Protein backbone atom coordinates (compact mmCIF):
# COMPACT_ATOMS: atom_id res chain seq x y z
CA UNK A 1 0.00 0.00 0.00
CA UNK A 2 1.29 3.39 -0.95
CA UNK A 3 0.47 5.96 1.64
CA UNK A 4 0.05 9.21 -0.27
CA UNK A 5 0.17 11.39 2.80
CA UNK A 6 3.52 9.95 3.83
CA UNK A 7 4.86 10.64 0.34
CA UNK A 8 3.79 14.30 0.52
CA UNK A 9 5.27 14.48 4.00
CA UNK A 10 8.57 13.09 2.73
CA UNK A 11 8.66 15.52 -0.20
CA UNK A 12 8.19 18.64 1.86
CA UNK A 13 10.51 17.34 4.56
CA UNK A 14 13.32 16.49 2.15
CA UNK A 15 13.11 19.58 -0.06
CA UNK A 16 12.38 22.34 2.43
CA UNK A 17 12.48 21.43 6.11
CA UNK A 18 15.52 19.13 6.16
CA UNK A 19 17.14 20.38 2.98
CA UNK A 20 20.21 18.23 2.41
CA UNK A 21 22.66 21.06 1.93
CA UNK A 22 21.25 23.89 3.96
CA UNK A 23 20.11 22.11 7.07
CA UNK A 24 21.69 18.64 7.11
CA UNK A 25 25.13 19.74 5.80
CA UNK A 26 25.39 16.89 3.32
CA UNK A 27 27.01 17.22 -0.09
CA UNK A 28 28.83 20.46 0.65
CA UNK A 29 31.86 19.70 -1.53
CA UNK A 30 29.92 19.61 -4.84
CA UNK A 31 27.69 22.39 -3.51
CA UNK A 32 30.64 24.77 -3.36
CA UNK A 33 32.64 23.15 -6.14
CA UNK A 34 30.09 23.08 -8.98
CA UNK A 35 28.04 26.17 -8.16
CA UNK A 36 30.04 28.67 -10.18
CA UNK A 37 28.00 28.27 -13.38
CA UNK A 38 24.28 27.72 -13.72
CA UNK A 39 24.60 25.19 -16.55
CA UNK A 40 26.99 22.88 -14.72
CA UNK A 41 24.90 23.20 -11.56
CA UNK A 42 21.87 21.97 -13.51
CA UNK A 43 23.85 19.00 -14.87
CA UNK A 44 25.14 18.05 -11.44
CA UNK A 45 21.66 18.34 -9.97
CA UNK A 46 20.17 16.02 -12.57
CA UNK A 47 22.95 13.48 -12.09
CA UNK A 48 22.47 13.49 -8.30
CA UNK A 49 18.69 12.99 -8.53
CA UNK A 50 19.22 10.11 -10.95
CA UNK A 51 21.87 8.32 -8.89
CA UNK A 52 20.08 8.92 -5.58
CA UNK A 53 16.87 7.35 -6.86
CA UNK A 54 18.62 4.20 -8.14
CA UNK A 55 20.95 3.97 -5.14
CA UNK A 56 18.02 4.25 -2.73
CA UNK A 57 16.20 1.32 -4.26
CA UNK A 58 19.28 -0.91 -4.61
CA UNK A 59 20.59 -0.29 -1.10
CA UNK A 60 17.13 -0.75 0.42
CA UNK A 61 16.78 -4.16 -1.22
CA UNK A 62 20.35 -5.05 -0.25
CA UNK A 63 19.81 -4.04 3.37
CA UNK A 64 16.47 -5.74 3.94
CA UNK A 65 16.96 -8.89 1.88
CA UNK A 66 20.65 -9.61 2.39
CA UNK A 67 22.19 -7.79 5.31
CA UNK A 68 19.29 -7.94 7.75
CA UNK A 69 18.43 -11.50 6.82
CA UNK A 70 21.92 -12.78 7.64
CA UNK A 71 22.44 -10.38 10.58
CA UNK A 72 25.24 -8.59 8.77
CA UNK A 73 23.96 -5.07 9.32
CA UNK A 74 27.31 -3.95 10.77
CA UNK A 75 28.65 -4.27 7.21
CA UNK A 76 26.21 -1.61 6.01
CA UNK A 77 28.76 1.16 5.44
CA UNK A 78 31.10 -1.00 3.35
CA UNK A 79 28.34 -2.63 1.33
CA UNK A 80 26.55 0.65 0.62
CA UNK A 81 29.62 2.52 -0.54
CA UNK A 82 30.58 -0.38 -2.81
CA UNK A 83 27.06 -0.56 -4.23
CA UNK A 84 27.15 3.17 -4.93
CA UNK A 85 30.61 3.05 -6.49
CA UNK A 86 29.65 0.13 -8.72
CA UNK A 87 26.34 1.70 -9.59
CA UNK A 88 27.93 4.96 -10.67
CA UNK A 89 30.34 3.05 -12.92
CA UNK A 90 27.47 1.06 -14.46
CA UNK A 91 25.31 4.13 -15.01
CA UNK A 92 28.24 5.85 -16.66
CA UNK A 93 28.84 2.94 -19.04
CA UNK A 94 25.14 2.48 -19.80
CA UNK A 95 24.65 6.15 -20.55
CA UNK A 96 27.70 6.21 -22.78
CA UNK A 97 26.31 3.32 -24.82
CA UNK A 98 22.58 4.03 -24.97
CA UNK A 99 22.17 7.77 -24.53
CA UNK A 100 25.17 9.74 -25.71
CA UNK A 101 23.35 13.08 -25.37
CA UNK A 102 22.53 12.45 -21.73
CA UNK A 103 26.07 11.18 -21.21
CA UNK A 104 27.45 14.41 -22.59
CA UNK A 105 25.30 16.40 -20.18
CA UNK A 106 25.93 14.31 -17.04
CA UNK A 107 29.14 12.43 -17.85
CA UNK A 108 31.73 14.54 -16.14
CA UNK A 109 29.67 14.80 -12.96
CA UNK A 110 29.15 11.09 -12.43
CA UNK A 111 32.62 10.17 -11.09
CA UNK A 112 32.32 12.98 -8.55
CA UNK A 113 29.14 11.47 -7.19
CA UNK A 114 30.78 8.35 -5.69
CA UNK A 115 32.39 10.45 -3.00
CA UNK A 116 29.40 12.76 -2.62
CA UNK A 117 28.29 12.25 0.95
CA UNK A 118 24.72 13.17 0.05
CA UNK A 119 24.25 9.88 -1.82
CA UNK A 120 25.66 7.67 0.94
CA UNK A 121 23.78 9.87 3.40
CA UNK A 122 20.39 9.33 1.84
CA UNK A 123 20.83 5.55 1.71
CA UNK A 124 21.77 5.50 5.39
CA UNK A 125 18.83 7.72 6.33
CA UNK A 126 16.55 5.39 4.37
CA UNK A 127 17.60 2.33 6.33
CA UNK A 128 17.96 3.99 9.74
CA UNK A 129 15.01 4.29 12.08
CA UNK A 130 13.18 7.53 11.32
CA UNK A 131 13.68 9.88 14.25
CA UNK A 132 10.23 11.47 13.94
CA UNK A 133 8.01 8.46 13.47
CA UNK A 134 10.28 5.72 14.84
CA UNK A 135 9.60 3.58 11.78
CA UNK A 136 11.67 2.48 8.79
CA UNK A 137 10.88 3.63 5.29
CA UNK A 138 9.28 1.15 2.90
CA UNK A 139 10.84 0.58 -0.51
CA UNK A 140 8.60 3.13 -2.25
CA UNK A 141 9.12 5.69 0.50
CA UNK A 142 12.88 5.17 0.27
CA UNK A 143 12.99 5.75 -3.47
CA UNK A 144 10.76 8.79 -3.11
CA UNK A 145 12.97 10.10 -0.33
CA UNK A 146 15.97 9.61 -2.62
CA UNK A 147 14.36 11.53 -5.47
CA UNK A 148 13.13 14.33 -3.25
CA UNK A 149 16.43 14.68 -1.41
CA UNK A 150 18.04 14.98 -4.82
CA UNK A 151 15.52 17.66 -5.76
CA UNK A 152 16.27 19.54 -2.54
CA UNK A 153 20.00 19.32 -3.26
CA UNK A 154 19.47 20.57 -6.83
CA UNK A 155 17.26 23.41 -5.66
CA UNK A 156 19.91 24.65 -3.26
CA UNK A 157 22.64 24.16 -5.89
CA UNK A 158 20.73 26.10 -8.55
CA UNK A 159 19.88 28.96 -6.18
CA UNK A 160 23.50 29.15 -5.14
CA UNK A 161 24.76 29.11 -8.74
CA UNK A 162 22.33 31.88 -9.67
CA UNK A 163 23.53 34.04 -6.81
CA UNK A 164 27.21 33.35 -7.48
CA UNK A 165 26.90 34.21 -11.16
CA UNK A 166 25.47 37.58 -10.18
CA UNK A 167 27.97 38.37 -7.45
CA UNK A 168 31.05 37.23 -9.35
CA UNK A 169 32.29 40.76 -9.99
CA UNK A 170 31.11 42.28 -6.72
CA UNK A 171 33.84 43.94 -4.67
CA UNK A 172 34.59 41.69 -1.70
CA UNK A 173 37.17 42.21 1.09
CA UNK A 174 40.38 40.50 0.02
CA UNK A 175 40.42 37.93 2.81
CA UNK A 176 36.85 36.83 2.06
CA UNK A 177 37.26 36.36 -1.70
CA UNK A 178 36.20 33.01 -3.16
CA UNK A 179 35.13 30.38 -0.65
CA UNK A 180 34.48 32.48 2.49
CA UNK A 181 32.01 34.76 0.71
CA UNK A 182 30.33 31.65 -0.72
CA UNK A 183 29.98 30.34 2.83
CA UNK A 184 28.35 33.60 3.91
CA UNK A 185 25.96 33.40 0.95
CA UNK A 186 25.09 29.82 1.90
CA UNK A 187 24.59 30.95 5.50
CA UNK A 188 22.08 33.60 4.43
CA UNK A 189 20.28 31.01 2.31
CA UNK A 190 20.22 28.61 5.26
CA UNK A 191 18.78 31.41 7.37
CA UNK A 192 15.96 31.77 4.86
CA UNK A 193 15.38 28.00 4.80
CA UNK A 194 15.23 28.03 8.59
CA UNK A 195 11.83 29.65 8.12
CA UNK A 196 10.50 26.34 6.80
CA UNK A 197 11.32 24.57 10.05
CA UNK A 198 8.31 26.38 11.49
CA UNK A 199 6.13 24.24 9.24
CA UNK A 200 4.82 21.89 11.88
CA UNK A 201 3.90 19.39 9.26
CA UNK A 202 4.83 16.16 10.98
CA UNK A 203 2.85 16.67 14.14
CA UNK A 204 -0.27 17.79 12.27
CA UNK A 205 -0.34 14.77 9.98
CA UNK A 206 1.20 12.22 12.31
CA UNK A 207 -0.95 13.22 15.31
Amino acid at each position, binding site marked *: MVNLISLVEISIGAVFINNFVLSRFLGLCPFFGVSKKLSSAAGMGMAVIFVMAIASSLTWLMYHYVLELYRLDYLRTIVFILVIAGLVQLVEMALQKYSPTLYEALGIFLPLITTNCAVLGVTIINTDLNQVTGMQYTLIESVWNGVMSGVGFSLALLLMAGIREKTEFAPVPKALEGL*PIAFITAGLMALAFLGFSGLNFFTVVGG
Partner: protein
Amino acid sequence: MISQEIKRGIIDENPILVLALGLCPSLAVSTSVQNGFGMGMAATFVLTCSNVIISLLRKVIPEKVRIPCFIVIIATFVTIVQLVLKAYFPALDKQLGIFVPLIVVNCVILGRAEAYASKNNVFRSLVDGLVMGLGFTIALCILSVIREVLGSNKLLGFKFSPRFQPMTVFILAPGGFFTIAFVMGMVRHLGNRKKGV
Protein backbone atom coordinates in the same frame (compact mmCIF):
# COMPACT_ATOMS: atom_id res chain seq x y z
CA MET B 1 61.60 17.41 10.42
CA ILE B 2 58.79 16.45 12.81
CA SER B 3 58.11 20.05 13.84
CA GLN B 4 58.07 21.05 10.19
CA GLU B 5 55.53 18.33 9.47
CA ILE B 6 53.35 19.40 12.38
CA LYS B 7 53.41 23.01 11.17
CA ARG B 8 52.46 21.81 7.70
CA GLY B 9 49.46 19.84 8.98
CA ILE B 10 48.13 22.46 11.36
CA ILE B 11 48.92 25.75 9.61
CA ASP B 12 50.19 25.62 6.03
CA GLU B 13 47.96 22.81 4.75
CA ASN B 14 45.22 22.72 7.35
CA PRO B 15 42.63 20.37 5.82
CA ILE B 16 39.56 22.42 6.73
CA LEU B 17 40.68 26.03 6.93
CA VAL B 18 43.18 26.14 4.06
CA LEU B 19 42.41 23.22 1.74
CA ALA B 20 38.63 23.35 2.42
CA LEU B 21 38.29 19.55 2.54
CA GLY B 22 35.92 17.60 4.74
CA LEU B 23 33.43 20.41 5.05
CA CYS B 24 30.31 18.34 5.70
CA PRO B 25 31.35 16.76 8.99
CA SER B 26 33.17 19.89 10.12
CA LEU B 27 30.07 22.05 9.83
CA ALA B 28 27.60 19.46 11.01
CA VAL B 29 29.25 18.28 14.22
CA SER B 30 30.92 21.48 15.41
CA THR B 31 27.91 22.48 17.51
CA SER B 32 29.71 21.54 20.73
CA VAL B 33 33.35 20.99 21.64
CA GLN B 34 32.74 17.41 22.74
CA ASN B 35 31.22 16.47 19.39
CA GLY B 36 33.91 18.31 17.46
CA PHE B 37 36.73 16.66 19.39
CA GLY B 38 35.11 13.22 19.16
CA MET B 39 34.71 13.56 15.40
CA GLY B 40 38.29 14.81 15.06
CA MET B 41 39.65 11.82 16.98
CA ALA B 42 37.56 9.34 14.99
CA ALA B 43 38.69 10.84 11.70
CA THR B 44 42.33 10.93 12.85
CA PHE B 45 42.20 7.23 13.72
CA VAL B 46 40.71 6.31 10.35
CA LEU B 47 43.08 8.61 8.48
CA THR B 48 46.22 7.28 10.16
CA CYS B 49 45.29 3.61 9.87
CA SER B 50 44.15 3.86 6.26
CA ASN B 51 47.27 5.85 5.34
CA VAL B 52 49.50 3.10 6.78
CA ILE B 53 47.64 0.24 5.10
CA ILE B 54 47.39 2.01 1.75
CA SER B 55 51.06 2.86 1.85
CA LEU B 56 51.92 -0.78 2.60
CA LEU B 57 49.78 -1.96 -0.30
CA ARG B 58 50.72 0.78 -2.74
CA LYS B 59 52.75 -1.55 -4.96
CA VAL B 60 50.08 -4.27 -4.95
CA ILE B 61 46.99 -2.20 -5.78
CA PRO B 62 46.51 -1.87 -9.55
CA GLU B 63 46.37 1.69 -10.80
CA LYS B 64 42.94 1.38 -12.43
CA VAL B 65 40.96 0.12 -9.45
CA ARG B 66 42.79 2.10 -6.80
CA ILE B 67 39.84 4.29 -5.73
CA PRO B 68 37.50 1.35 -4.91
CA CYS B 69 40.40 -0.34 -3.08
CA PHE B 70 41.05 2.80 -1.03
CA ILE B 71 37.36 3.11 -0.21
CA VAL B 72 37.14 -0.48 1.02
CA ILE B 73 40.19 0.00 3.27
CA ILE B 74 38.77 3.25 4.64
CA ALA B 75 35.31 1.72 5.12
CA THR B 76 36.84 -1.12 7.15
CA PHE B 77 38.33 1.28 9.67
CA VAL B 78 35.14 3.34 9.75
CA THR B 79 33.23 0.19 10.67
CA ILE B 80 35.69 -0.41 13.52
CA VAL B 81 35.12 3.15 14.74
CA GLN B 82 31.36 2.69 14.45
CA LEU B 83 31.38 -0.47 16.56
CA VAL B 84 33.71 1.02 19.19
CA LEU B 85 31.61 4.18 19.48
CA LYS B 86 28.41 2.16 19.80
CA ALA B 87 29.89 -0.03 22.50
CA TYR B 88 31.81 2.47 24.63
CA PHE B 89 30.53 5.98 23.80
CA PRO B 90 26.81 5.56 23.03
CA ALA B 91 26.01 9.21 23.84
CA LEU B 92 28.63 10.54 21.41
CA ASP B 93 27.50 8.00 18.82
CA LYS B 94 23.94 9.32 19.07
CA GLN B 95 25.13 12.93 18.76
CA LEU B 96 27.30 12.32 15.71
CA GLY B 97 24.63 10.06 14.20
CA ILE B 98 24.85 9.69 10.45
CA PHE B 99 28.22 11.45 10.31
CA VAL B 100 30.07 8.44 11.73
CA PRO B 101 29.43 6.21 8.68
CA LEU B 102 29.95 9.26 6.48
CA ILE B 103 33.63 9.41 7.52
CA VAL B 104 34.03 7.01 4.57
CA VAL B 105 33.38 9.78 2.07
CA ASN B 106 35.27 12.44 4.01
CA CYS B 107 37.42 14.02 1.31
CA VAL B 108 40.33 14.61 3.70
CA ILE B 109 40.88 10.86 4.07
CA LEU B 110 40.48 9.88 0.42
CA GLY B 111 42.46 12.97 -0.57
CA ARG B 112 45.45 12.02 1.61
CA ALA B 113 45.28 8.41 0.42
CA GLU B 114 45.37 9.52 -3.20
CA ALA B 115 47.83 12.40 -2.90
CA TYR B 116 50.23 11.12 -0.24
CA ALA B 117 49.93 7.56 1.05
CA SER B 118 49.88 5.96 -2.40
CA LYS B 119 53.20 7.59 -3.24
CA ASN B 120 55.20 7.59 0.00
CA ASN B 121 56.67 5.03 2.40
CA VAL B 122 54.95 3.74 5.50
CA PHE B 123 56.63 5.96 8.08
CA ARG B 124 56.02 9.16 6.16
CA SER B 125 52.40 8.19 5.55
CA LEU B 126 51.93 7.46 9.24
CA VAL B 127 53.30 10.89 10.16
CA ASP B 128 51.20 12.53 7.46
CA GLY B 129 48.04 10.83 8.77
CA LEU B 130 48.77 11.95 12.31
CA VAL B 131 49.54 15.60 11.51
CA MET B 132 46.66 15.96 9.06
CA GLY B 133 44.31 14.42 11.63
CA LEU B 134 45.70 16.81 14.22
CA GLY B 135 45.08 19.78 11.92
CA PHE B 136 41.54 18.54 11.25
CA THR B 137 40.84 18.11 14.98
CA ILE B 138 42.26 21.54 15.87
CA ALA B 139 40.20 23.28 13.18
CA LEU B 140 37.09 21.45 14.36
CA CYS B 141 37.81 22.48 17.95
CA ILE B 142 38.23 26.15 16.95
CA LEU B 143 34.91 26.09 15.09
CA SER B 144 33.09 24.30 17.87
CA VAL B 145 34.44 26.55 20.64
CA ILE B 146 33.12 29.61 18.78
CA ARG B 147 29.78 28.00 18.04
CA GLU B 148 29.25 26.52 21.49
CA VAL B 149 30.10 29.77 23.31
CA LEU B 150 28.06 32.03 21.04
CA GLY B 151 25.23 29.60 20.42
CA SER B 152 24.51 28.03 23.77
CA ASN B 153 26.65 30.10 26.18
CA LYS B 154 28.53 26.98 27.27
CA LEU B 155 32.04 25.64 27.03
CA LEU B 156 32.54 21.87 27.30
CA GLY B 157 29.05 21.71 28.77
CA PHE B 158 29.69 24.27 31.54
CA LYS B 159 27.99 27.66 31.63
CA PHE B 160 30.25 30.28 30.12
CA SER B 161 29.05 33.66 31.41
CA PRO B 162 25.95 34.46 33.48
CA ARG B 163 25.18 37.73 31.68
CA PHE B 164 25.60 36.70 28.08
CA GLN B 165 22.44 36.02 26.07
CA PRO B 166 23.22 33.09 23.72
CA MET B 167 22.45 33.45 20.01
CA THR B 168 20.80 30.17 19.13
CA VAL B 169 21.38 30.70 15.41
CA PHE B 170 25.04 29.77 15.92
CA ILE B 171 24.27 26.15 16.77
CA LEU B 172 21.82 25.95 13.87
CA ALA B 173 22.84 25.49 10.24
CA PRO B 174 23.37 29.17 9.22
CA GLY B 175 25.71 29.78 12.16
CA GLY B 176 27.94 26.97 10.93
CA PHE B 177 28.35 28.63 7.55
CA PHE B 178 28.98 32.07 9.08
CA THR B 179 31.53 30.75 11.58
CA ILE B 180 33.62 28.89 9.02
CA ALA B 181 33.44 31.88 6.64
CA PHE B 182 34.90 34.26 9.19
CA VAL B 183 37.45 31.84 10.61
CA MET B 184 38.65 31.05 7.09
CA GLY B 185 38.74 34.77 6.25
CA MET B 186 40.78 35.42 9.39
CA VAL B 187 43.27 32.68 8.48
CA ARG B 188 43.66 34.13 4.98
CA HIS B 189 44.04 37.66 6.33
CA LEU B 190 46.84 36.58 8.67
CA GLY B 191 48.45 34.65 5.83
CA ASN B 192 48.32 37.69 3.56
CA ARG B 193 49.78 39.93 6.23
CA LYS B 194 52.63 37.51 6.82
CA LYS B 195 53.45 37.52 3.13
CA GLY B 196 53.31 41.31 3.18
CA VAL B 197 50.55 41.56 0.58
